[in-house]
């Protein structure tokens, strides 16, 4: 009786239940659209078409997805060790410094494939540094990371305002941003990848950092499930008392995991800075760190779940912008409502339909494999 929910087959657990949750979220969102006097079906059409209708739209969707993969992985890594890192937002922001410094230093003299590795290291290092402090404070002083990472988001924000208005801004420029990078600070687009599928990238900023995001997702999988450190992290995440029993140092793991989490968040900065804007602007993160929490929740903190969840949120961003453009009665805020509903049903209410689905499976199961499935308790 310790587990009130019956065990479901993996495809139902990881496929059917999220799908049902998603469908319900969209149904409720449809009601909201209906409420403002618009046709939900045409809204759905604009959403899907706006996200996937043309090569250019797909490029935008995947561009957003790239950002969310990084922040989703960042949150998920911390989750596995039982740490709730709400500071991906600030860590990504600070990570931008690493990218900007690498680009400002070498963009005029070096090609992008030399600058890119340095920018990766820079972004990860700055993000990790920003997460190290809350991690260290929790490990040594017992200050909870949930509180400190939130506060560090505000500190990051203020710090960046200072840097972008006083230090990194070129003289005589009005906007709080760095100068625009030359060729060495610009990541190539992935038009060759799109053309394999016969699609045209158009103006979309879909760039090589997407491949880095996929690589990062694979590395996170290896880290969590195939390394000693990952084993220690998961032990601590599931049962701190078992970790103590096994001689796993809580302080050490906390600091290391927060730094990995911060590093992943920091790498998110590569995508908008080197991939789209070619400069660092004020507030370039735009809430991606918080979306990362939803992505990690929906993806069950597993890289194989985080990638589709990130694409889903990329679709909501890109398709949502399209709805707002095509249907004036629906403002951008409505899109935020829809995103909120997805998070609500997929994250907070993820167990709502489970008992019903469990019953369906139980009645099917009893007819066919009842004897085989009954455990010896």
């Amino acid at each position, binding site marked *: 009786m310790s587990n009130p929910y019956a065990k479901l087959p993996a495809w139902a657990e990881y496929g059917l239940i999220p799908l049902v949750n998603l469908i319900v979220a969209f149904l409720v969102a449809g009601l909201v659209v209906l409420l403002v006097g618009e046709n939900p079906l045409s809204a759905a059409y604009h959403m899907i078409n706006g996200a996937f209708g043309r090569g250019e739209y797909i490029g935008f969707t995947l561009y957003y997805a790239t950002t969310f993969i990084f922040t989703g992985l960042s949150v998920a890594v911390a989750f596995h060790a039982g740490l709730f890192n709400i500071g991906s937002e600030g860590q990504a922001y600070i990570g931008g410094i690493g990218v900007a410094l690498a680009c400002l230093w070498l963009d005029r003299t070096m090609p992008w494939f030399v600058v890119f590795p340095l920018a990766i290291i820079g972004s990860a290092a700055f993000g990790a540094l920003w997460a190290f402090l809350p991690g260290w404070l929790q490990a040594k002083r017992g200050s909870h990371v949930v509180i400190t990472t939130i506060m560090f988001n505000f500190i990051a924000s203020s710090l960046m305002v200072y840097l972008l208005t006083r230090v990194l801004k070129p003289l005589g420029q009005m906007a709080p941003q760095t100068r625009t990078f030359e060729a060495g600070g610009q990541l190539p687009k992935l038009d060759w990848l799109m053309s394999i599928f016969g699609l045209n990238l158009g103006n979309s900023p879909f760039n090589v950092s997407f491949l880095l995001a996929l690589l990062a997702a694979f590395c996170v999988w290896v880290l969590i499930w195939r390394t000693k450190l990952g*084993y*220690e992290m998961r032990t601590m995440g599931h*049962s701190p008392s078992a970790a103590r*029993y096994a001689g796993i140092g809580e302080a050490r793991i906390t600091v290391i995991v927060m730094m990995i989490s911060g590093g992943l968040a920091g790498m998110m900065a590569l995508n908008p800075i080197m991939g789209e804007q070619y400069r660092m602007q004020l507030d370039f993160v735009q809430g991606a760190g918080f979306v990362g929490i939803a992505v990690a929740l929906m993806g069950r903190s597993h890289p194989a779940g985080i990638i589709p969840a990130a694409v889903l949120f990329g679709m909501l961003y890109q398709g949502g912008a399209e709805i707002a453009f095509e249907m004036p009665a629906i403002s951008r805020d409505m899109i935020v409502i829809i995103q909120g509903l997805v998070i609500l049903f997929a994250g907070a209410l993820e167990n709502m339909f489970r008992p019903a689905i469990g019953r369906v499976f139980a009645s099917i199961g009893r007819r066919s494999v009842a004897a085989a*499935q*009954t455990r*010896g*308790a």
Partner: protein
Amino acid sequence: MSDIAIELRGIDKSFGLVHANKNINLTVRKGTIHGIIGENGAGKSTLMSILYGFYQADRGDIVIDGNTVTIKDPNAAIANGIGMVHQHFMLVENFTVLENVMLGAEDSQILNTSISKARVELKRLEKEYALEVNPDALIEELPVGLQQRVEILKALYRKADILILDEPTGVLTPPEADHLFRILGQLKDQGKTIIFITHKLREIMAITDEVSVMRRGEMVATRKTRETSVEELAELMVGRRVLLRVEKGAANPGDVKLAVENLTVRDGRGVTMVDNVSFNLRAGEIVGIAGVAGNGQSELLEAISGIRKAVSGKVLLNGQPIDVTAHVDPRELRDRGLAHVPEDRHHVGLVLKFEEAENGILGYHHDKRYLNGVFLNTKAIQADAEEKIKKYDIRPPNARLKTANFSGGNQQKIVLAREMERGPDVLIIGQPTRGVDVGAIEFIHKRIIEMRDQGKAVLLVSVELDEIRALSDRIIVMFAGRVVGERDPDATEGELGLLMAGVEGRKEAAE
């Protein structure tokens, strides 16, 4: 009026794919004590939860006094005269006895009227059933035995005619348990019906009139207690013949492997839990630490195994000191030959969400055997797990299965296999058979004796006095954090019981 208090007809309940109760029929006669016995997971608790309204049966009828009733929640159960004494007490610690008894059964919105009425009623109940307890005492200040009495009074106050007691003796000393049995006898004489759930065969034989045996969700037999035997009940529970007594030869103690000197441990609130404890543990012997739960045994184990810091004292492992007053790395102790089977396997000894194989390396995950550099050598881990599954007969034999899906006995075997197969010099075991089914107990006891016969030093802590007596070569009794006596395993249960209750100990200390 018939002489049948409760009849269950065809009760059936499933949780998803788990069929917890299969077509259960049970008849409990009025004015009797009816025992229900079965292994963990046999479905006893589910059945009683259905009777008390926590769950609804998928099928079947509950008949009370000849009327079919629907029990949709505990209030309906109380209205039908059913009272329940839970294994874990449902009392408000900082309320008085009186307040706890009337909680939820106040007869008016104005508290003072309720209190004075309840006081009169409580007095009457105390007299009628000889259940003395001070109505103004705070629950947290009462010993466990009296707290249980308050639970019984609560049920009687709600006019229960049928009392369900779920594993009531788990937290009691032997004298307290005897006292409880006397109370139950009186209640029976007054015409109350009692359903007594336990997994201890001895208790069933001692006080029940009839006994029903459950196995794997089914009611396999009902017997008149005086017409059955412990052996028959054990066989019915497990479904095969079991050996109840452990066979072991004489101990052959060697060098001192673990020496504990003047160890003092405080808990998080600064309360002294282990008070100046000293003892020796030799190679080739089993030393049992007896005591009622909560008398410092847990903290003692934690301090020795490096999980909890001690305030003062010395511990020598293989003659080398362990710095128990500073932070000790459990990993270092493992390397030095100390293995620890913790009391709480669910939260400490295992990570329930891990696959079986992953738990097989917990604490030993630094071992080169299981690693390729910083990566886990999954093949080696898997092979190692499969070997242990075979050797310890862990079922189901699937190293990829989540640990939470194994039964209590098999979970314990996973921990034992991990700790014993290392060939440690000193093995510390807490509650080796708590929540473990009879069949597995036999196996676990045999393995512990084998360890001893291989010359290992074994320190055993258990709240099951029978287990301590069966396995130990020497018995140390702890009470209120102190060692209050050391006895041979052939000391009588009464003698040990008095020590455990602190009675003898105080006298000895005074002398």
